[in-house]
């Protein structure tokens, strides 16, 4: 079975800082893959390179067989890659329903009119925002804004969903609910790449983890294995010699 996403030699430099350094990995359809690493290790930059916020300096990205490295974000979105942002970015002047409609109208669904509106409403129901269809994002709590952002991403009918710390800042009950939601999406055939610091979520959700440090891949494998890897522990906690 060929990979849904195949990344090789991905690099991006910001001035003197090599934020992502010859990074490579692949994801098979149906997987939930965790992307871990200490702060500043380049995780969000990798997502930005994949989704088209940034252009890579070098390297290739193949998504569903299309070469997408350096392609504009709207093309990548229409191929079926959706994402959420680390700090929520709802479209502030649009109602929740219209936020979701953007993905339906301009993504692969290409839906408009009454059909699109009812699809938007059912996506809002699915993430637990059915009561807030006409609300503006500013009226929602932080958690509900995260739900909204997820619904907007799902409106693209994605095959691959990139979640950038989507579970961060949730209380234990919400976290459990969030984990259930992600597992449900995976059950419906959506492949997921998640950047996450919440270890409980990583252990219970991820089939496989990639660990980054200073822009490079330092470990990959089962969650329990990589979290026990001495080099991973060193990356997070520092060398014995430093202590």
């Amino acid at each position, binding site marked *: 079975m060929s990979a849904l996403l195949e990344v090789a030699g991905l690099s991006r430099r910001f001035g003197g800082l090599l934020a992502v350094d010859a990074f490579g990995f692949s994801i098979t359809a149906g997987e939930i893959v965790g992307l871990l690493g200490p702060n500043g290790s380049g995780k969000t930059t990798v997502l930005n390179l994949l*989704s*088209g*916020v940034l252009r890579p300096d070098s390297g290739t990205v193949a998504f569903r067989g299309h070469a997408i490295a350096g392609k*504009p*974000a*709207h093309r990548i*979105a*229409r191929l079926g890659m*959706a*994402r959420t*942002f680390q700090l929520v*970015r709802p*479209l*502030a*002047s*649009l109602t929740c329903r*219209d936020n979701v*409609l*953007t*993905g339906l*109208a*301009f*993504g*692969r669904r290409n839906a*408009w009119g009454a059909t699109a509106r009812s699809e938007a409403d059912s996506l809002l129901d699915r993430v637990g925002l059915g009561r807030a269809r006409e609300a503006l994002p500013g009226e929602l709590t932080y958690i509900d804004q995260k739900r909204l952002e997820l619904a*907007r991403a799902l*409106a*693209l009918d994605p095959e691959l969903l990139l979640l950038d710390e989507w579970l961060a800042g949730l209380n234990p009950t919400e976290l459990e609910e969030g984990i259930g939601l992600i597992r449900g999406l995976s059950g419906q055939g959506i492949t997921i790449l998640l950047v996450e610091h919440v270890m409980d979520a990583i252990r219970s959700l991820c089939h496989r983890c990639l660990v980054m440090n200073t822009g490079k891949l330092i470990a990959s494998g089962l969650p329990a294995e990589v979290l026990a890897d001495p080099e991973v522990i060193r990356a997070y906690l520092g060398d014995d010699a430093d202590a």
Partner: protein
Amino acid sequence: MRMLGVALAVVAIAALACLPLVLGDYGLSLAINIASYTVLATAWSLFSGPTRYVSLATVAFFGIGAYTTAVFVESQAWPLVLLIATGVGIVVAAIVGLSTLRLSGVYFVIFSFGLAELVRQLVTWFEVNKTRTLGRYVFADITAAQIYWQLLALAVLVFALGFWIGRSRLGLALRAIGDDETVARHSGIDATRAKVALFVLSTVFMTLTGAIMAPRWTYIDPAIAFNPVISFTVLIMALLGGVHRLYGPVLGVVPLALLFEYLLARFPNHFSIMVGLVFIVIVYLIPRGIAGLVEGAVRKPA
């Protein structure tokens, strides 16, 4: 409800169309002034409202329209003159749009202002060096009432277009871009194409307004046709009325056109400084425009 709205619009347009029959010369010239600024300010808001790109290029397109008329009015039939103006406007707008709408915020404002000056200088250079005359006479067999009716038709068209955009995918795309362009792109919106399309649509109306207005002057030169005050006036009017609603700009055009008329008659030497003060007052006191005030007042009791 929908039928009622259409019926009201038809009655309003018919009433406005009868104005030249009851107004005197002075009244008609005021009506022409208001009609032309209504088209300009509404067209300006079509683009600048949702995208939040503040354009000072209004007069670049207005002037191009006026010059197209000046050049072709004696050799071509009038509808053809308007058609040529439309074509020239579209070409210039597409070139400008494609090359500048990747700029953001303040860079675009400065560029748009520079564009108007650039076009003015180019026309001046061409007239001085090639045709060897700086001004042109515009002799057209067109009455003031006919100019008014054409502007009214243009106003109806710009409102119809705005109404359609508000309900179309393009409208949703533009509101999303105005909120957060990166997010909009990640929802599959081709932001550059949407912005260029709207910029072209918006500026065509400005070009046509200039083309229709040119015979009013009988004589134009680059300083008249590309007067930057026109760009600023349109901006003030649109901001006063409110750019978030289609009907907003006209609420700013009518009071300001009347006020400017009064100021120009009473304080001809201090006109510019008065306009500047009006601008400051509007931006500080009513940032969401009259349309925003009206909606705020309507919403509060609920």
